[in-house]
């Protein structure tokens, strides 16, 4: 690292990660919850973290990597501060989800599963958010926004810094 300002933060993350490993050591079926919580700490799954998880649970790294790449929730690259997930469910599809996605994608200039250079947004799609009554829908972080139009969606994402 070229500057030192991030170091104390990264130490803090390291510590909570070590705590996490301790918590799950020896537990059956712990791989997925461990990966989920590790991702909560780092925002994604760095290779070193996956290696340590494999070591702690006594699982081959290849298996950990296999599980990580199987589930859509796990990420191998850093992600944006705000995760935009545009619903692609049937009801949303029928009510124009594609237009919403295109509008958002055009506005922040990234394609599906990409992150803006300033790490402000990551754009994803999701199979169904289960808010079909409000279709088309998107989720930004934990907030669900419904009854979208292309214009409205563009306005909403601006609120997330």
């Amino acid at each position, binding site marked *: 690292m070229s500057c030192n300002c991030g170091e104390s933060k990264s130490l803090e993350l390291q510590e909570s990660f070590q705590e996490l490993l301790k918590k799950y050591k020896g537990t*059956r*079926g*712990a*791989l*997925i*919850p461990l*990966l*989920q919580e590790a991702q909560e700490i780092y925002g994604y799954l760095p290779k070193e973290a996956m290696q340590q998880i494999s070591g702690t649970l006594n699982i081959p790294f290849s*298996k950990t990597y*296999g*599980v990580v790449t*199987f*589930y*859509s*929730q*796990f990420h191998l690259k850093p992600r944006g501060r705000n995760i935009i997930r545009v619903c*692609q*469910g*049937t*009801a949303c*599809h*029928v*009510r124009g989800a594609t237009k919403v996605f295109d509008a958002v994608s055009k506005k922040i200039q990234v394609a599906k599963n990409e992150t803006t250079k300033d790490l402000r947004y990551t754009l994803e799609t*999701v*199979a*169904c*958010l*289960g*808010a*079909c*009554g*409000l*279709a088309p*829908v998107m989720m930004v972080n*934990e*907030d*669900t*926004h*419904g*009854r979208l139009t292309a214009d409205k969606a563009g306005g909403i994402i601006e609120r997330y810094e």
Partner: protein
Amino acid sequence: MKDLMDKCCSKCFHTSEKPCRDYLACRLEGPLCHQDETCSRKRRDFINSIIIPQESKKREILICAGTGCASSGALGLLAKISEELETRGLSDSVGVKITGCHGFCEQGPLMIIEPSKTFYTQVQEEDVAEIVEKDLLGGELAEHLLYQDPITGERAATYEQVPFYARQKRLVLHNCGHINPEEISDYIANKGYLGVSKAVFELTPEQIIEDVKLSGLRGRGGAGFPTGLKWGFVHQAQGDKKYVVCNADEGDPGAFMDRSVLEGDPHAVLEGMMICGYAVGADEGYIYVRAEYPLAIKRLKIAIEQAEKYGILGNNIMDSGFNFSIKIKAGAGAFVCGEETALLTSIEGNRGMPRVRPPFPAQSGLWGKPTCLNNVETFANIPQIIRNGGSWYSSIGTENSKGTKIFALTGNVNNTGLVEVPMGISMRDIIFSIGGGIKNGKKFKAVQIGGPSGGCLPEEMLDLSVDYDSLNSAGAMMGSGGLVVMDETTCMVDVARYFLSFTQSESCGKCTPCREGTTRMLEILTRICDGQGKMEDIDTLERLARVVRSTSLCGLGQTCPNPIISTMRFFKDEYISHIRDRHCPAGACKALLEYRIISEKCRGCGMCIKVCPAEAISGEKKQPHVIDPAKCIKCGSCKEVCKFDSIVIA
């Protein structure tokens, strides 16, 4: 009493460590171990503070805080109301509480005033003062917030008068929208946990299984396997350890009933699982929930914590000697994990891939132990079946499909939302009576039922009885109960392509026919939608569909061709016109569209020139404009802005 753990006097000893077997009955009707008018009045007052009697002067405002209403601004509304009541000094006489989903998400945020059951829709923060002024203080209705029928224009004052609810039979959803899901007392006051207490004190495991068999309940996750039979298998299976697993990995796009039940009435699911555990001989349960449902996970966690604290869940439940604990596992985003064997593999911490059955989970499931796996809605039915008896339940529904089913009614229909109806009702009743017909006066074309595994039913099938067997014979399936209504502007080839693109990306890749077959079928469908189709594609699709269906291991592969098969069966002419005439009859497939300006209607205002992102439109001011088809990217922007309807799709 402030909550149900408060003791009426020193004679009561109930705690989670030293539980009392009469705890529930005592809190509802007691005291049972001694006679004391003060003690029994304390109980009555407490129950009345939850279920407000008609004659009471106290009022309660219920605000829906399900995912739907929350995204329409319910939480801001809650804060505003509490503030308003505070400033007007009404906090003591008017209570406010949040509830789970009412199912009528289209009209959210929803508000009910108890005990009059006044039903306000689309309530905004600025309406709060009016509601307090008119309704709470003046005793009048805030007329313009009442539900208005889109066709007759009539307003409905109460919940029951709204046509959307009037035709429903809400058994599983009876608590949703009426109780506070984060408060166990609300559930108990509404007869909650009486089912499990009847089960452990009055019934043997065999009697429970017989009762569930008698009820005729079939699995609500989609396949419709008789629940009582499954419980019987797990009960008979040999093993020192058994598990109960609740499948809450609701992945079908267009289905959200499980989410609503978990968010609105989580204790009913816990109670169903406990009864199941007692019947099959398990002492540990898992709920596998999609990580995309953060609110459901949060409410389940609260529910489990409270039930443990109240001595209803855990060791020696209500001093019966029965132990049962429940853990939550959050899914990690894989549709195939809704399949039972994949789900169990995922709980064990592996890639969620299905395996060969037999052995079925009932013999060898989670960690190789006998496992009883049911869906959320199935478990939520159980407490009432045990409380009221199997024959009561089997009096509802048809010959082979008993009880009710929740459907998620969505798409191009006026009233979208969750509807619970008795089995055997016609599709027409659901879409036109409850759903209020097609949006914007358009024409009905098809209804898609059962998600990516299901099929499309055309207009002539609308009078079909909605039950497991009729739907199967019509080439559709109950599935989890998603109903997506499509109007004349929906292209059926595009719908088939949409579902295939879903199953293709969700195929786990274990079976070659599914992995490769879905990819090839998707290629062909995309080609047809792009106007590059060949006539022989239809035969190829049919053959591929047959192969994938008969050679895949799990339900995903076996049913993924259904959307193709059923759209080809009922809408073959649409496929043909895409291929032969390079024309999309619904006007939905972009590649096959051509935008044109009708010169007689065009006034040459220039609006379309301004919005066209491809600079494809040209023309002098006040002279008819023209679109250059070579430059047009078919975005439709020009059509949206034209005030004279002069742009058409040909």
